[in-house]
């Protein structure tokens, strides 16, 4: 989910949502519990995007890639703390491999903060400092990495937990060329590969989502009159924007990416070509431990409580138009039936119709239900999952079409809603599919077809983040 409003609040300066103190220290007791921080300095466990696709990196097409982006709208110049994962959060990728909507495999990622190095010894309460410039995540060249995050990855399958990796290091925010003279080299040190062929990355990346955010949320005030329509030529050009502003350009995000051989995910443990059940469903989820004061001496059960989930993009914003989004977030994907009304009668369709005066398909949308909540049309069970058909070959990066099934000149079958790749234009597809035939035919969209820098074709598939020195998104 994109906490859209937060993006603008954060642009004013991250620590604005600052530590609001508790009570002053009490004379009677030396600095007691008082003056406790009241708000975490980290952004909440906010998942902005979830991607899943067969790798389109040459030689890796038998692997599945899953990426979770968190902390949307990172302002690159947000020193001195910049941006970090939240150690109190468990980040998880959850996969259903037998089409019953419930997760069968889980990959859990958990972070820990280390305060270390030159900044500590020099008495500088800073996270990163060029003493000397940071050229390594560990050992010589890492002395300036005052705040470092280590993480572990655990796979849970049939109730059994296996540690896939431990003590990996998250790639820090891109501070600037003096502190981190060769950021891409530094970031590449954060790409790990295990013996079983699993690749893992956690750290800052450029936010791949492109959208005219202000336009969309100013009641669909997109920047072409009288209607926000693209010509066929504009629609066919995935490298240029037709109209509007990509208001996420210049912002970063934190990403956790994992690449796994498909045979590790399928029920019959066979690879992409051989498996008899190639349809996977997945989502990203964040959880926190629920610790109560407790009234028994030995109360130490602190269950993990899901605070957010994300499968298909824009469901929470465009489809689930309820004020109690926290309730939606806490619910498991296989319990989506209670929200069925929102899929059958999408509010976004009403909004499009009202704003543009063009008839939209506002009710009886069993097509949306089947698209987003089912593996096969005949399924009885409904679950909100991002579904990937492993039998569809990945499209090489140069041939990818952002509009997927609606692309000019023929569909790109390896695009959303068959999995989701960083380059897929989920907004245009969602507006057209939810709007209905009129919107598809007219080529409605926000006019933004691409981010400002090209996406890489190799793991972790997201671009170098903007540096804090070079980019300051001031209003």
């Amino acid at each position, binding site marked *: 989910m994109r906490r859209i409003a937060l993006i603008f609040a954060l642009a004013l300066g991250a620590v*604005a949502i*600052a530590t609001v103190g508790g009570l002053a220290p009490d004379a009677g007791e030396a600095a007691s519990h008082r003056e406790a921080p009241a708000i975490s300095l980290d952004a909440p466990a906010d998942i902005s995007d979830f991607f899943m696709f067969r790798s389109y990196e040459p030689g890796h097409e038998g692997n599945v890639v899953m990426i979770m982006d968190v902390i949307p709208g990172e302002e690159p110049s947000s020193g001195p703390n910049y941006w970090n994962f939240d150690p109190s959060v468990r980040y998880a990728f959850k996969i259903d491999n037998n089409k019953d909507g419930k997760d069968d495999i889980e990959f859990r990622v958990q972070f820990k903060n280390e305060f270390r190095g030159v900044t500590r010894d020099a008495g500088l309460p800073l996270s990163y400092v060029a003493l000397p410039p940071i050229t390594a995540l560990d050992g010589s060249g890492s002395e300036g990495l005052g705040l470092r995050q280590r993480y572990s990855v655990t796979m849970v399958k049939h109730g059994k937990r296996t540690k896939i990796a431990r003590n990996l290091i998250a790639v820090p925010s891109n501070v600037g060329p003096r502190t981190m003279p060769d950021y891409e080299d530094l970031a590449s040190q954060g790409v790990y590969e295990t013996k079983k062929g699993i690749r893992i990355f956690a750290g800052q990346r450029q936010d791949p989502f492109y959208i005219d955010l202000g336009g969309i949320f100013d009641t669909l005030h997109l920047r072409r009159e009288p209607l926000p329509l693209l010509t066929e030529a504009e629609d066919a050009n995935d490298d240029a924007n037709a109209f509007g502003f990509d208001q996420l350009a210049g912002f970063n995000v934190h990403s956790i990416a994992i690449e796994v051989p498909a045979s590790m995910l399928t029920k019959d443990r066979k690879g992409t070509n051989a498996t008899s059940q190639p349809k996977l469903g997945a989502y990203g989820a964040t959880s926190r431990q629920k*610790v109560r004061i407790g009234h028994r001496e030995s109360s130490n059960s602190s269950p993990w409580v899901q605070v957010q989930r994300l499968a298909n993009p824009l469901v929470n914003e465009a489809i689930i138009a309820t004020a109690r989004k926290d309730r939606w977030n806490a619910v498991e994907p296989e319990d989506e039936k209670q929200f069925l009304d929102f899929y059958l009668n999408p509010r976004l369709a009403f909004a499009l119709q009202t704003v543009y005066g063009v008839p939209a398909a506002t009710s009886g949308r069993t097509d949306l239900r089947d698209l987003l909540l089912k593996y096969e049309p005949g399924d009885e069970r409904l679950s909100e999952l991002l579904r990937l058909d492993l039998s569809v070959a990945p499209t090489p990066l140069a041939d990818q079409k952002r509009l997927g099934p609606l692309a000019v000149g023929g569909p790109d079958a390896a695009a959303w809603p068959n999995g989701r790749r960083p380059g897929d234009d989920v907004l245009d597809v969602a507006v057209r599919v939810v709007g209905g035939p009129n919107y598809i035919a007219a080529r409605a969209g926000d006019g933004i077809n691409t981010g400002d820098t090209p996406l890489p074709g190799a793991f972790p598939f997201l671009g170098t983040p903007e540096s804090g020195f070079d980019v300051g998104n001031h209003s």
Partner: protein
Amino acid sequence: MRGKLLVAGVAGIVAVAAMFFGGVLSELSTAGKASSDSARARVTPAQASRIAVLERVVARSPSDGPSLIELGLDYQQRARETADPTDYGRAEAALRRGLRFGGDRYLALTGLAAVAASRHRFGVAVDLARRAIRIDPDAEAAYGILGDGLVELGRYDEGFAAFDHMAARGSDLPALTRVSYARELLGRRRQAIVAMRMAVGMASTPENAAWTLVQLGNLEFDGNRLRAAEAAYRQALAVFPGYSHAEAALARIDAAHGRLAAAVRRYRDVVARMPLPQYAIALGDTLRAADRGAEARETYRLVGAIERLFRANGVRTELETALFDLDHGRRLRDALARARKAYVQAPSIHAEDVLAWALLKNGRCQNARAHSVRALRLGTRDALKLFHRGMIERCLGRPGTARSFFAGALAVNEHFSLLYAPVAREALR
């Protein structure tokens, strides 16, 4: 007078402190002095410049609600880190203006609640926190301050419910530190330590990590585990060199081990940088324990000056000043009046205990006992409260009961007080 004190602010107090301790400051090692200087400016350079930038912004656009609120929150944070109470007024003014000019109401109200709580106006804090919660029932922070306020008002069930609510959607550092405090109040020190350890693992800035480590150390110290306490304090300093609260805590460890001269040096360094009443008092008591009475008396005068500054900046200080006077045998009747006033304003178990002590010192032992019983009603394993009860029982002519309370106090923490642990030990001989 008030205006003068406001202008003087922390700089004034520090100047006064420097006059007293000028000679001592030169004794500090170079490294210590360097860290002392940088710690004084331990509003980080980035934060200082952010405050400066925001001050310019709102000077140019006085009705920029969001910037005003951001500035108000930064002032509150600065007060937390520097113990300069003049920032409370600045914070309040900025937040109120921000509220008027269309800033985020939830943030403004939560910030104002925090300022009120810092000034020990807990009823106001509770009201403001409730208003914030009405605006955004799902946001965590206001529940923390609501709970803080209710706990200080002696409404423990409601306060603990607020803390549990805060922790319900997943526990982060602010929630865990409060869960820990609640467990401590309920006499469950081991579980309090468990929660505080979890919180340490979640700190995202050196200041938060150091603060939490000091809390952890205090939990250990108060449970007579000095080695574990010292380890936590040293870890705090490793993460945030020169952190005043950690230095003061190590001074307390020094004193507990009888290293009084070393304790005095540490406390002086702390008070020079962060003139909080409790550290000045600790310095004075350590000097007294070291038979340096004249210096102790000078320090106690400094305590008065600091507390007048806090009062001038809207902080209620009746409870703290009453306790100080009672412990040092000064103005006992006036101290009783202040203790009563503090108790009426905020009847926490701490206020009950100080009132009990005040009544005892004024010869009203029966009344004192009633309040002491209430002070211990949660089952808190608090050595000082147990000691006070022992003195009250002795006054009531029950030496056996008194001795068991003295033994109880020392069993919780044999180093519970420089002044009074020896009294308890003496009584048991």
